[in-house]
Structure formats: structure tokens, C-alpha cells
């Protein structure tokens, strides 16, 4: 099974962004998807660093793709979607607007924010040129297995969300800006202080969600460590790790060791806990009654 690093969902400084991707060149991962997924207003801060990062990663033998935005409404965002095609690497479609700009039959991959729930959709996407599909995180294991089989028949690699805060929703409204009494157009980049999202608690102080500009994420970090055998048996071809600001190189190494059979899931989750003891884990979308549920030994609060 391969390891894919998904696009960074957060707003990092250009220098932090650059050093993150420099480090990834040496990480034991197979594929890296980069570019701006969440908010087009963030892109100008690091856009000029993207070509060098691509060159470095390709030079390190990584498979590289560029993501589209998750929600495209503005004219300049449509233009960006069109320009992705000319960047020389595969496009990961996370909004169908990007697909509209791809030449018919050109190969592309599909990210977790496109609704791929069934065989009919995989089959249609494969016919259109999809070579790899990262499934939406909310799918249960039974659906993943059915779709991995369908993908195998069609020559499409099926990827599953393996680690990281779950992208639960995207909006036209910026919640970071709203919290600071601003509108999206005048956000003053309120999200830049929260490199892993801002914790959102319930009225009883229970951690629940994370705010990231126009995106809403889970508080918990999804962790598929205990489902690796089931995913492999189902024919899943790749596991996606979603970037976080702390300990990500360790996380890549842990999942690589897990896939290689060098460590077990308990070891992985213990080590993740040592990066940040406040990390809560979940794998409920795959196996639980609710997305937030966790099948591992340390129960979520």
C-alpha cells in the first residue's frame, strides 16, 4: 500500500510551507499532493514557491500532483482551475470545476472532497480519465471495500483518508473572519494564527470541531492504524496522511513502518500521542457508529 500526503489544509507562512515540503522530499511517502485546497486568498503568499517544491519532490522520486480548490465561486478562482492543467503535473480534482477545464481523456486524480459514493460514479470518472480516487472520509468500510473492487476492475487506484483532522464542511462564509467581526473579503487573514485550525468546543467544554477559515474540520485526528489489514484486504491501494504543523515527519515514518509490518497499531497510536498528548483519535467513519468514534484503546473524551 502506498502513502500519499494530501494538500496542506491550513494557512502557513511561506517559509514554514517551503521547509515542510523540503522535509517531505526525504520522507518515506510515495506521493504528495500540494497546492491550495481551502481558500484562494492564501495562495499569493506562497504561490511562487510551488514550482521549486514540485521540482524538489520530483527530484526525490516522489509522485506529485496539484490540488484544485475545494469550492470555486469567483472568476479568478475559475481561472486558477484552468491554469492547473498547464503546471506539468497531474491535477487532483477537489471541485468538479477543475474537471471542466481538463481536456477529455487527460489523466487526473480525484480528491476526497468530490462525492464518490458508488460504483456508477467511479465508473464514470474512470471513463473520463481518473486514475486514482481518494474516497470521501465519511464512507464506511463496507462501501470502501465495494469501491476498491470496482476501482480495481477499472484500473483506478482507490485511496482512503488515513490520518489527520477530517475535512467535514466547506462554506462560502469565513468563520475565522466572522469570529473577529469581519467579512471574508476583509478577513485580514485571521486564520494564520492557527496552523492546525482553531479548536471549537461545546458548551460543556468538550472538544468537537476545528475552524479553518471557510473550512470546518473534526477536532479528532482520523487514524486508520487499526484498519490497515481490512483496507489492504479490500484492495485499497493508498493511505492518505493529511499535513499537520507538528511531528509530521514522525507520522509519515510511523505509517510506513506500520504498512511494512515493522510495528503494530498500538505502537503507532502511542507514538502519535507523544507528539501531542492532547491529540484525540477517531476511526468511526470506517468502523464506528459515528465518525467521532474510536476503536483504539484510548477512548476519545
Amino acid at each position: 500500500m502506498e502513502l500519499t500526503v494530501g494538500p496542506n489544509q491550513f494557512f502557513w507562512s511561506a517559509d514554514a510551507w517551503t521547509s515542510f515540503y523540503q522535509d517531505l522530499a526525504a520522507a518515506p511517502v510515495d506521493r504528495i499532493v500540494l497546492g491550495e485546497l481551502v481558500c484562494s486568498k492564501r495562495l499569493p503568499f506562497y504561490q511562487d514557491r510551488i514550482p521549486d517544491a514540485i521540482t524538489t519532490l520530483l527530484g526525490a522520486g516522489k509522485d506529485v500532483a496539484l490540488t484544485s480548490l475545494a469550492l470555486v465561486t469567483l472568476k479568478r478562482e475559475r481561472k486558477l482551475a484552468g491554469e492547473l492543467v498547464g503546471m506539468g503535473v497531474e491535477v487532483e480534482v477537489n471541485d468538479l470545476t477543475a474537471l471542466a477545464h481538463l481536456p477529455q481523456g487527460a489523466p487526473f486524480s480525484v480528491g476526497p472532497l468530490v462525492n464518490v459514493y458508488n460504483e456508477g460514479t467511479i465508473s464514470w470518472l474512470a471513463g473520463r480519465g481518473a486514475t486514482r480516487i481518494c474516497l470521501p472520509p465519511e464512507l464506511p468500510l463496507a462501501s470502501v471495500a465495494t469501491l476498491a473492487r470496482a476501482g480495481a476492475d477499472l484500473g483506478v487506484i482507490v485511496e482512503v483518508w488515513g490520518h489527520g483532522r477530517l475535512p467535514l464542511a466547506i462554506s462560502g462564509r469565513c468563520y475565522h473572519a466572522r469570529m473577529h467581526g469581519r467579512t471574508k473579503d476583509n478577513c485580514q487573514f485571521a486564520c494564520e494564527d492557527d496552523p492546525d485550525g482553531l479548536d471549537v468546543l461545546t458548551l460543556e467544554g468538550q472538544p468537537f470541531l476545528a475552524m479553518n477559515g471557510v473550512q470546518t474540520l473534526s477536532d479528532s485526528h482520523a487514524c486508520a492504524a487499526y484498519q490497515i489489514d481490512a483496507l489492504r484486504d479490500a484492495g485499497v491501494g493508498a493511505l492518505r496522511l493529511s499535513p499537520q504543523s507538528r511531528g509530521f515527519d514522525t507520522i509519515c515514518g510511523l505509517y510506513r513502518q506500520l504498512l511494512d509490518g515493522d510495528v503494530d497499531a498500538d505502537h503507532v497510536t502511542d507514538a502519535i500521542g507523544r507528539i501531542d498528548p492532547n491529540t484525540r483519535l477517531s476511526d468511526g467513519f470506517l468502523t464506528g457508529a459515528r465518525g467521532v468514534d474510536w476503536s483504539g484503546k484510548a477512548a476519545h473524551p
Partner: protein
Amino acid sequence: MVMEIVCPAGTPASLRAAVTAGAHTVYCGFADETNARNFPGLNFDRAEMREGIAFAHDHGAKVLIAINTFPRAGDEALWHRAVADAESCGADAVILADLGLLDHAARHHSGLRRHLSVQAAAANADAVNFYADTFGVKRVVLPRVLSVQEIAAINAETDVETEVFVYGGLCVMAEGRCSLSSYATGLSPNMNGVCSPASHVEYHDDKGVLDARLGGYTIHRVQKGEPAPYPTLCKGCFSAGDKTGHLFEDPVSLNAEQLIPQLQKAGVTALKIEGRQRSRSYVAQVVRNFRAAVDALEAGLPMPEGMLARLSEGQAMTTGAYKKTWR
């Protein structure tokens, strides 16, 4: 041309009430997971659908059938059957969201008109034209993330009809792209046709303070005697940083009645009212009001004012993303 009023009907009685009250078009769904209002006691069996469509057609109204959840892997037959039955029941169109189901309908039911559900969240002209060119979609229901200016820009670049929500429940997140509900309860709009389901709501009364919980998470708290809004996740009360409040959206509903003239200028074909779960008397009154508004507009008369205030039951109203400052 007069703007088309598209009204919800959760039951055959509501369908008849909406048609009688002047709805140009009614939308409804089958009583199963194939539609995004899969609530207990709601929706139509096949015989009711056939009769409802016949009633509407006799009165010059159209019926659209929403088959707008995302078919479950291994179970697509249920959704395929819904499309086939919609056609045989005489539906004027089906409202679809899933790529695979759109492809299926285009190939196997090419004579059945296809509308794109808001659950597909086609939010710009490229996406709208993509669905039209690829699957022969004739109308797109636009997501509630767009301003009136953006809607006008879309209409300037497409021949596809657009339909927009003007009244009722308001999704704050891009529709069809939200898993908040399944994260907290296991049930989602995309997979199960429900959001923040009543089966997972608990009210907890502690010494005069009433907590509303969804999936065990306390997301509303009021003093006893105060009105307690339904605990929909995105309209819950949370804290982050040093702020506590409705961080995503207040417990408001959408009312864009005063924007109808602008929406018409923006090239919108149809105005959609949310609320298949609402009573037939509610539906009838909302229909009468909106019908009066579009008829007045067509006749060049001023818009009736504040016509729906009474129906909102004291709940706050918003024009949502139609005004850019909402963002």
C-alpha cells in the same frame, strides 16, 4: 415570463394544498433513502406519487421528484429504480446530485428531464455548463453560497435554467459537501438523507437550564421558558478562542422575498421554497405569498411587504449569502 414558484410537498395532502394555493411546480420524494428529506412519516409511495402527479397535471402544475442523495455502494439499484419509477409515474423532471446516477439517467432515461440538485453544489458557470454538456441537465439549483451578483454572472454565461432558494431552512455549508452530521451522529445528508436527526436529539433539564444535545454534544443552552431552537449542528452554540456564540450561523432561516426583483434581473428562472417537512397549511400560506409576489412583479406592481413575518414564528430571518457581507 413570470418566475416559477417551486414548492415543497412532504405528503400528498401538502402537494394538493400547494397546487391549490397556486404553486407552478411542486417537488417531492419517494419514502426512502433516495431523497434528502428522508424523515419518518414523510414522502410518497409509488401510488401516491402517481396520483399526486395526475392531480398536479390536472391543475396545470408540474411535479419534480428529488432523488438527490448519493447512492450507497453495492445498493445502486434502489436509486436506479427510483429514477425509473419517477419516469413511469409521469414526473416532469428528476432532481439528481450524484455523477453516477446522472450518467445512468442520461443513458437509460434520456426522455426524462434532469435537474441538478443543490446537493451537487455547482457554484460557478464552468460547473453548471459541465453538468449541462455532460449529462444534459436543463436546470441547476444553485448552492446557498452565492451572492446575487454571482448568480447574475453565472446566468450570463449559461443557457441552463437556474433555480434558487428563497425561503425556509438555510444550509450554511456548501450543500452535499458536509459531514458534520455523520461525524456526530453517524447519519448524513449525503448517505441517509438526514441532517442533525431528531433520533439523536436529547433535551436535558437541569435546575431551570435546558440543554439541547445532538449525538451527546451540548450545542444549545437556554433558561427554562425561553424558546429552544432545534439543535442543528451548524447553528449551534460553541466556543473557540475567547468567544462563545453561534460561531457558524445564528439559528436563522432564509427569507429572500425582498430580493425577488433582483433575482429576476439576475436571470433566475425559478424560486424554490425549502420545507418538505412542514405542514400543508404552512406550505399553502408560503405559496400564496410568493405567488402574489411574482404575479405583482410580472404586473409591474410593488412587492407586497413583510408578507411572511408571521410564519417565521418569531425566528430570525436572513438573506444569507445573497448579500455579500454574509460571508
